[in-house]
């Protein structure tokens, strides 16, 4: 309770391939979030930007870029990069400022303009950079790692190509009427299974694309929020954990895992520890969840997350999916927004977008994709180089 902050406003620029400057998307999301909060830009004391690394210096100093674009106001500023987890890191910084009493109102924003095709390392010869080297020496793209996890799941738990296709089918239906989603088409299992293999066993329609997009949230202290609203949606926990040694699961952009030779296996794999830290901080558990937004970089990875966030035991995710428990109308709908399957990934905006969706859901304002009676939701996400990200939102 003492660690809660209020979500006063949320806003997004629709995902797509719009070909415009990322600042334009971000400003739209900021303005929408401020309007949603009933606040003005001059009310913001702290701007927390999630960085984009593909848009030059303005992207690296995104907090200041947006502060300038909104009109220098003297607000404090910060910019954070942690790959796909950048939005959660930016939100964590904002929350810490609020809880420390340094500011009352914080604006958190992430926006990206992406190139076509695979996410590639930034250009130039950098033989000391593992992210550069994995492309150079292995030709290992991001989907390479997703393919390894998917094949492993098939071998360990008997998951099938059909199960993976069903995840995509579910998410494509969830996102059908989401105005911020890029892909609004109901795919059939057949569509999915007829799409070409990108990284065996994963197919084109099962791997998330890269998108342009932006998301913003306005956070405040509970005290500040009480003057404006009686029952705000709150952030009850933000997990930004790193792995514990030895990290024995191969992860982007690494060539190998840590060695368990001298220290034995870790107590829990990294991906299990991410949501666990959020649950512990909030004093809640998976049994309290009404919905979740998980990072479905691939359709198969969504199934891993069911287990990682405690919706079921290892090996039971396919049963959960096939029983409809994670579909809208089921026990704990997963990715009611449509997930990355319908959005594609706008890296610095994505973890913030997950929180926008939970906020709309907990307000009962999600329209046709509304999860009835939603009061507790969880996001989970992971950024390469060891960034966990999980945010617990409650009403």
């Amino acid at each position: 309770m003492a660690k809660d902050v209020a979500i006063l406003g949320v806003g997004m620029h629709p995902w797509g391939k719009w070909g415009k400057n990322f600042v334009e998307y971000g400003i739209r999301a900021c303005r929408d979030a401020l309007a949603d909060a009933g606040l003005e830009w001059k009310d913001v004391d702290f701007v927390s930007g999630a960085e984009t690394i593909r848009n030059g210096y303005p992207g690296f100093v995104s907090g200041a870029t947006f502060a300038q674009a909104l009109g220098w106001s003297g607000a404090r500023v910060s910019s954070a990069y942690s790959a796909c987890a950048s939005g959660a890191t930016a939100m964590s910084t904002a929350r810490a400022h609020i809880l420390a009493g340094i500011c009352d109102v914080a604006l958190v924003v992430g926006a990206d303009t992406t190139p076509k095709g695979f996410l590639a390392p930034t250009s130039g010869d950098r033989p000391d950079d593992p992210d550069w080297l994995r492309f150079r020496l292995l030709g290992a793209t991001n989907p390479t790692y997703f393919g390894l996890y998917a094949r492993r799941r098939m071998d360990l738990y008997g998951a099938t190509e059909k199960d993976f296709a069903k995840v995509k089918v579910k998410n494509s239906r969830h996102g059908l009427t989401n105005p911020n989603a890029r892909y609004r088409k109901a795919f059939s299992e057949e569509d999915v299974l007829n799409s070409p293999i990108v990284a065996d066993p994963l197919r084109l329609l099962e791997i998330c694309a890269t998108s342009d997009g932006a998301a913003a949230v306005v956070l405040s202290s509970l005290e500040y929020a009480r003057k404006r609203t009686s029952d705000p949606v709150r952030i009850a926990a933000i997990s930004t954990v790193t792995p514990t040694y030895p990290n024995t699961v191969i992860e982007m952009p690494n060539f190998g895992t840590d060695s368990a030779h001298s220290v034995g296996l870790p107590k829990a794999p990294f991906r299990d520890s991410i949501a666990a830290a959020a649950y512990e901080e909030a004093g809640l558990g998976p049994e309290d969840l009404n919905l979740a937004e998980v990072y479905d970089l691939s359709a198969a990875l969504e199934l891993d997350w069911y287990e990682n966030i405690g919706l079921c035991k290892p090996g039971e995710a396919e049963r959960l999916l096939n029983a409809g428990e994670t579909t809208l109308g089921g026990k704990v709908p997963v990715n009611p927004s449509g997930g990355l399957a319908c959005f594609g990934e706008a890296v610095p905006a994505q973890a913030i977008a997950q929180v926008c969706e939970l906020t709309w859901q907990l307000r009962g304002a999600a329209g046709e994709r509304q999860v009835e009676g939603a009061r507790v939701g969880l996001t989970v996400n992971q950024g390469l180089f060891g960034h966990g990200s999980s945010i617990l939102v409650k009403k």
Partner: protein
Amino acid sequence: MSAEKKRVPAVEGWFTLDPEKPQLLGTRCTSCQSYFFPKESLYCRNPACAGTEFAEVPLSRTGRIWSFTNAGYQPPPPYVPADPFVPFAIAAVELEEERMVVLGQVAAGTGVEDLSVGMEVELVLETLYEDDASEYLVWKWKPVAH
């Protein structure tokens, strides 16, 4: 593939150049005996160990497939593709002694249909790409013939 071309490693010091029985080169902390690949040589990454001395060690040249996949589409630069692009498989291989998993491309001519989790593979060197003067070598995993 002219025979006169120099055969040089695509990355310096990551593997031996023994044409018959190549091995990956890692390091081992002399205090806690943990293995590292690629090499760690400054401070031991085991948080319970204060070690700063490392010995270079060749890693096991055989292991078992932890998982595998392939590249159906040409990876972006800095990958240097063959022209035309030839799809290739990639395996994550568990080394029993070191208790770690190491990635590598799978030897040319072996596709995912030839692989299974748990299959025994060995390390080989193959050409990753070439220019007018040299062939650049990299390690790959190849199923062990039984």
